[in-house]
């Protein structure tokens, strides 16, 4: 009996919360288990969506409409006269002046506060997502990868190299290994990167001319077909 009632309470009457929990867990799992930084960001977005859905569903009331006044409650009274409906006794006196709604009428509108909170949350979510994407791009430029384990390996290697070189050893005497200043790492990683990039660049410049030719060849063959 107890088991069944829990089941019906959870999966029949509160199905929406189950959906949000599943969405949230998908997002959390992506953030924890995926190695790719972009996939982690996608997980973060899914997590955020679950939270937003949860808040919006709190605002739902049965038999209620969206939180914008209906024409009969419009403060300016320009759209339609109340003309003695259920609220007629109150509004008949001053048709044009706005009136505070009564308890019964308040039940007819959804709660606006969660909508406002989520509106701002969405905007801030976009801003943080943009910032995170920018950081990811910078990481890719610096290290050539956005896979987490490769990134950690490269960081370790850069750390070791930094600890071997005498100039940086003086600087970091007091610090522990993990506290290596980020600028040193960035320099080392960047330095390695530039030499690689230079090598690549020369080979690419050589290849460029032939690629252009081959692409035009491809186009022509397409056109013939």
């Amino acid at each position, binding site marked *: 009996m107890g088991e069944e009632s829990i089941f019906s309470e959870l999966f029949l009457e*509160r199905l929406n919360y189950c959906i949000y*929990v599943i969405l949230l867990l998908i997002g959390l*799992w992506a953030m924890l288990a995926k190695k790719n930084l972009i996939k982690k960001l996608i997980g973060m977005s899914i997590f955020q969506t679950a939270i937003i859905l949860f808040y919006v569903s709190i605002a739902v009331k049965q038999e209620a409409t969206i939180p914008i006044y209906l024409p009969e409650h419009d403060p300016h009274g320009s759209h339609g006269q109340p003309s003695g409906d259920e609220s007629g006794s109150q509004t008949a006196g001053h048709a044009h002046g706005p009136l505070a709604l009564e308890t019964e009428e308040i*039940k007819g509108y959804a709660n606006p506060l969660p909508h406002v909170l989520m509106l701002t949350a969405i905007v801030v979510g976009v*801003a943080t997502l943009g*910032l995170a994407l920018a950081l990811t791009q910078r990481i890719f430029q610096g290290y050539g990868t956005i896979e987490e384990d490769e990134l950690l390996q490269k960081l370790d290697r850069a750390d070791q190299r930094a600890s071997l070189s005498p100039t940086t050893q003086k600087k970091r005497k007091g610090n522990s290994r993990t506290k290596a200043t980020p600028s040193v790492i960035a320099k080392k990683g960047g330095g390695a990167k530039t030499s690689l*990039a230079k090598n690549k660049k020369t080979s690419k410049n050589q290849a460029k001319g032939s690629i252009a030719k081959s692409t035009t060849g491809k186009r022509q063959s397409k056109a013939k077909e």
Partner: protein
Amino acid sequence: MKILSLIPIIAIGGLLLWAAQDFPKWGDVESPASKSPVSSHFIGKTGVDTEVPNMVTAVLADYRGFDTMFETVVVFIAGMAVLAILKGSTRGNSRRKDHEVEAEPDLIVTNTVRLIVPVIQIFAFYVLAHGHVSPGGGFQGGVLMGASFILIALSWDLEKAVSRFSIERCMIVAALGIVIYGGIGLLSMMLGGEFLDYAELERVLPVSREMARYHAMLGVEIGVGFTVTAIMFALYANLSSEGSLKQGL
């Protein structure tokens, strides 16, 4: 690693599902959020206080004005941070430039975009200005306006869009939006009220206290719209071209 991370996730899921039993049912009228005096005050008194039919706009721009102002500042700071992160990164870009594909703008897409971009911009103004009576407001109008510039950047290339709306101008417009918002707040403070107490603007505007709040809300939304437009476009331009502002997506 994947299996290891499943353990806390299952634990969290179980906890959340266990807690979900105590939550109100779907659409419950008696739920704490719907029964709270804050909610019923917002629903019942918005018309009296501000004469704005759209409660969401009223709560966003008036009752929670501080929140929205710093929200706008957050958007502005995010745009500036993206600019600062990607601006100095010319080193990585050289790697990509050799690759650039000869992507000439498509005739059909450019002509369609030429037709609909003005429509989108007018619609964005409508959404921004009509946000008091229909769904809309500063954020939504700003996003639509930013989308029109992004559409230009997509169908031609980024240089064309940036030549219309350069990043420096973007940041100036974004800052201008915040200045408009804060300026309205400061103006109401100078007129004897508190910060963002729009009702005091009745001394400047030839309207009643409620209508002063109504019109001040429109000004505030315009400020928000400026900032969001500029930052949306700046984010797209910087992220799609890795900070070089050339070629783009």
